[in-house]
């Protein structure tokens, strides 16, 4: 699933480590999220959306039937 995490993070001048600490995940998780290799759980998606002050739908781009 594509997302705008990297875009929003750079716009707010936040490092991956700072974002990881804020969301209580490892930096590796942030890297995997930004690369689209890992799909966040609902809880993490919600935390990330709250951190950036956007909605989940604005942060994550759901492109129909993935992995079906």
């Amino acid at each position, binding site marked *: 699933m594509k997302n705008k995490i990297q875009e929003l993070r750079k716009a707010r001048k936040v490092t991956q480590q700072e974002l990881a600490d804020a969301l*209580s*995940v490892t930096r590796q*998780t942030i890297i995997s999220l930004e690369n689209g290799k*890992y799909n966040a759980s609902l809880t993490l998606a919600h935390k990330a959306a709250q951190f950036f002050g956007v909605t989940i739908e604005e942060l994550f781009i759901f492109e129909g039937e993935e992995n079906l």
Partner: protein
Amino acid sequence: MEKFKKQLVTSNCIYWLFIALSIIGAVLVVVFSPNHRDGNGTVGFFAAMIAISVINIHRNRKALKNEKLLKEMYINSVDERKKQITLQSAKASFFIILASMLIASIVFRFISMTVSIVLTCCMMFILIVYFAVTAYYNKKM
């Protein structure tokens, strides 16, 4: 974070108990082993378990005194991607081990019947436990 601190303290108690049991086990093996050479591997195994426990106790104590290290450990323990990796690894390992046991059981049927039967019984035990645990979680969730 307070809950995690309590978890580390509990972990340390369990490790100490493990060390005590390993020492008792090693002593029993040495004292009651008919041929002292046979016990060497087992004593070595217990020694390794003790060493691992001591390292973990030391790591936990260090984390309890250092907030930065504690936070790092906490994040590593709750990170969802790591949990998912552990889950996927366990799932894959389970099936690989079961398949390997099945193949070994068939191969050993032509070499040693005892080994084949033991492997088959182990496989059956694993499957029974798997189905029982699955039924439990199906009901719980």
